[in-house]
């Protein structure tokens, strides 16, 4: 089939994303479709995002981890779990989230630096995050003992729906974000 219309191009992108197991590099798709500019490619993606399905959609376009992929549309989570007989969805513990936050903002960072910032030994959470492939070894710090340095992975970006690390809010934005919301207490009732 010729890729002569924008509709066909959008359908082709969908076909590629359907087959691809990993997010697809948008540059590669642009080059293949011979898009004149980023604007044309964006129109193709918009067309793909706007597909109508009588109010119900199977998948949506996801831009995360520097690539494009198809993910299930919001709202199917419970039924999918039921269909595939998946009982639990594992979430990260608060300790792991804190550790991940430090790695995300301070990378590359050593275990000692993580433990110091958290105020508690963090070997457990680091191991857990390594196993989940959310962080990776990123060389060794040139200080006595040559401690291992940790950095986040693309898996991290995908798991948190981030295009790249720059999409993490800056510390100023974070403060504003939490001033707007009434800060929910993390701690038990006072």
């Amino acid at each position, binding site marked *: 089939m010729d890729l002569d219309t924008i509709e066909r191009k959008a359908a082709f992108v969908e076909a590629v994303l359907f087959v691809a197991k990993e997010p697809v590099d948008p540059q590669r798709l642009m080059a293949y479709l011979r898009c004149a500019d980023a604007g044309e490619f964006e129109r193709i993606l918009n067309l793909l995002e706007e597909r109508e399905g009588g109010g119900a959609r199977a998948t949506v376009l996801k831009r995360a981890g520097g690539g494009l*992929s198809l993910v299930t549309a919001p*709202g199917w*989570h419970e039924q999918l779990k039921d269909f595939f007989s998946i009982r639990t*969805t594992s979430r990260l513990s608060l300790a792991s*989230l*804190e550790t991940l936050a430090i790695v*995300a903002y301070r990378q590359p960072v050593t275990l000692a630096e993580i433990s110091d910032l*958290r105020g508690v030994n963090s070997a457990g959470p680091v191991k857990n995050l390594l196993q989940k492939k959310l962080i990776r070894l990123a060389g060794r710090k040139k200080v006595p003992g040559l401690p291992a340095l940790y950095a986040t992975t693309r898996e991290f970006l995908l798991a*948190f*729906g981030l295009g790249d690390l720059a999409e993490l809010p800056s510390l100023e934005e974070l403060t504003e974000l939490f001033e707007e919301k009434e800060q929910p207490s993390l701690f038990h009732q006072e």
Partner: protein
Amino acid sequence: MELESYRIATDFFEGPLDLLLHLIRKNRVSILDVRLADITSEYLAYLERMEGINPSRESDFLITAATLIAIKARTLLPRTDLPGEESPEKALISRLFEHDQLQKISRLLQEMEETEITLWRREVIEESFSSREYAIAEVSAFQLSELFFSLVRRKEKEEFLTVAAKSYSIEAKRQEILALLDKEGFLDFSAWIWTLGSLEEVVVSFFTLLELVKRHRVVAVQKELFGPISLWQQAAAN
């Protein structure tokens, strides 16, 4: 009762910074305005409810208690600040500030995870299928080595009539293994290694296998400990 509530609290406050932040929030002051000397007694009250301090577990709490007492003592004494010396109060407050931001970021990440977890990607289903159908354990490098040395010992006991002067390269073996995997889909490593001609070839093959596993080109699976090891080609990542 008192003891009970403290137990719950220690489980909850993972470190002294958590406890301090809790006390600051309870007093409804901002971290930058807090007078640490004022909350020292509250902090110590928490520690006092502890029966029998376990130094290895509570040492972080004790160090912070000592710092708080030192800060309080300094506020009572005439100022003798040396130029260039950072006050312990400032140091602790900047740590608290960082810890507070950390908790905010963690909560943000938690919300993001909560959203993303409901959007399914391809891998999620594949994983749950494979884990239910095979329940196979991936073989660690140590198990592979163990298998290798047991194979080498068996090979050594064999008597060779001829010695072929042939050298093997990892690159050639790599292509051989990948070609076999391409053709057959999978490879019974233990059986295959028996078909090899010499110890040298076994050694080179094994290093090639380790290299392939390391580069995520193949997956080595073993259904039980010391059982036969099978190889699969791993779907190309990128």
